[in-house]
């Protein structure tokens, strides 16, 4: 799903248009103090980490909108451009660690996502948006207690850029 530039690879219950529609379904208010940040989370480490944060009643920043992926490797770059031009302030991708001691259950998924995000810089500058509005985070399931800080830090960074000029269109 993430590899295909034509977006023609899909599953019966999981596809590029499905996630695109899910992102469009998010309501983006006009008010500056109500930012919206899309958060793509992988089902193997990121989603369970959020669950455990919930079990421990850790409080999270309320402006993130969670969309599940099987693996960050399924991230298609078309989603980045689409959601940013819909007025979303930023996109965070939380997935498993990659590298020598990798955790990614799909072996290379989060690593490939990271490489592909490098290609999205051109898209972002065409939209006159800061490259740092898209951020991938490697999270091991036992690092769930870092989530509040991770989300807050990103929200703070986005605030520093000022509102997305597409917000309210």
């Amino acid at each position: 799903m993430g590899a295909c530039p034509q977006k023609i690879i899909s599953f019966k219950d999981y596809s590029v248009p499905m996630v695109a529609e899910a992102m469009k379904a998010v309501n983006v208010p006009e008010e500056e103090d109500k930012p919206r940040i899309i958060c793509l989370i992988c089902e193997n480490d990121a989603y369970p980490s959020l669950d455990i944060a919930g079990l421990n009643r850790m409080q999270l920043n309320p402006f993130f909108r969670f969309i599940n992926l099987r693996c960050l490797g399924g991230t298609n770059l078309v989603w980045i451009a689409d959601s940013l031009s819909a007025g979303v302030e930023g996109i965070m991708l939380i997935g498993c660690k990659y590298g020598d001691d990798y955790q990614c259950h799909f072996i290379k998924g989060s690593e490939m996502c990271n490489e592909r995000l490098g290609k999205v810089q051109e898209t972002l500058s065409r939209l006159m948006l800061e490259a740092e509005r898209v951020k991938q985070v490697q999270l091991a399931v036992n690092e769930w207690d870092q989530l509040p800080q991770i989300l807050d830090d990103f929200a703070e960074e986005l605030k520093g850029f000022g509102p997305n000029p597409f917000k309210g269109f």
Partner: protein
Amino acid sequence: MSEEAKNEAAAEEKEEFTQKIGLYICTGCEIGDALDIDALKKIGEIKKLENIKTHEFLCSQDGAQIIKDDINNEGVNSIVVAACSMRVNTDVFSYDPLKYVTERVNLREQVVWTHEPGDEDTQMLAEDQLRIGLARIAKAEPMDPEIEPITRSVLVIGGGVAGLTSALESAGAGYDVVLVEKEAELGGWSRKMHKMLPAKPPFDNIGPSDIGEKISAVEGNDRIKVMTGAAVTKTEGAPGLYKVTISRNGGEETVDIGSIIMATGWRPYDAGNLEHLGYGKFKNVVTNVEMEEMVAANDGKILRPDGSVAKKVAFLQCAGSRDPEHLPYCSSVCCLTSLKQATYVTESDADAEAYIIYKDMRTPGLYENYYEAAQDNPGVMLTKGEIVSIEEGADGGVSIEIDHTMLGEKVRFDADMLVLATGMVTNMVPEGRTINDLTPDYIGQWKETETPDGIIKEVIADPHILNLEYRQGPEMPYLSYGFPDSHFVCFPYETRRTGIYAAGTVRAPMTAMQSASDAGGAALKAIQCLELTSEGKAVHPRVGDMTYPEINFTNCTQCRRCTVECPFGTLD
């Protein structure tokens, strides 16, 4: 609805899935207290959903029943459960994936438990998450697994202890096995051993190898077809549907195979690189493998290569191991092997002595009991130390000087023979290649291809064991030191080729007992693969998943990026 009408409707549904969504909101677990549930219901109403229900305890029998009732009586076939995490209550909210689609909206862990109850922003979050769930389900269809008749047979490549054990385990579970061994005889390295490391509790004593029994059991088993002096020359197909070509005695045979176990074992690190430790320089410096073979051939007598008796034998651990210039890793078996061979020495003669020079003594797990027993053996001396020099000693022996001992001073002593405890290299690395000169990902050659986009460099694996007819090459990728990559943390028995399972020393250094246990695990995985595949279900990493990538070829530009990037080499 009449029975006839119901059947007609069911037949229609098979062709085209006309979605009817039901939205079920649980107000339990503080969800009802924290959120404006009516506002959530409105979101469903805006989408014109006819079936929107709430329950204060949705996962209870009563709660689950309201969903079942809607499915049976209202024709709901797309169920949105807005409640707890999708990772819990999977048995309660489980609807036949061949007929229905289900979406779990996490209002509990990801909304109510992590955000301020009653707060405006929390409410907006919940509403958006619900919108996301409704958007997702609108694009979902029931699963349609591909089910084809498969071959319920297992191919085992390698006839050593791991291969023999996995063959016996698979046959014992009722599956046909084809066992391919490249040598003329079965048994692998175990055949050449004089004795085996402890294999039974309390693991404090060496004993005879049971490889003879395993070989007889395999040869006598009707379900196992043994092919010695044979090699796999081509593997085509997919799990459940492999066609494997095996060559033997100049002839070829293609067999239908369901899943594959790769148990091709190890070889010793090339001691030719250890001249600085005396190998090749002095005639009575041997490797642990040579020592084992000599003792076995001489029926327990400790004789040097020239035939004379050795009464003082020194063992040097980590010879060419834990060394970035040789094998950077520890083979976990050599310390135990030296203890075993030290026992041979003391068993051979009341006056015989063994000296083990180590950096660390590594005897993992319950093998510790054997280490303790060896320490109690008065003929076995163990000392920490690093080699300063190895020179030719009196009478063809060796004179060894070591430093950094626990005495805090250098020590020199003589021995009749020096055994270098060398490590293990996986047979996934072809002969003639070392682990220090491997190409990245695959063991092979760099290949440059000219394309309209410029020159593309990729590694093509050298054909070796599997000879796969796959776009990503004939062999599987390695992660470190040539060992097959597997996602060691979560799926250690898997490899990056679905349906192929690595077992024994080909996948990690281990003892014969550990190899046998590993082989049992691989057999289990190989059988699991067959059974799941026969039901149209995925094996790994999403066990039981009946979805699979579907490609709309009308718009395909044949860029092949998917075939190149798939970590499992699935697409061709």
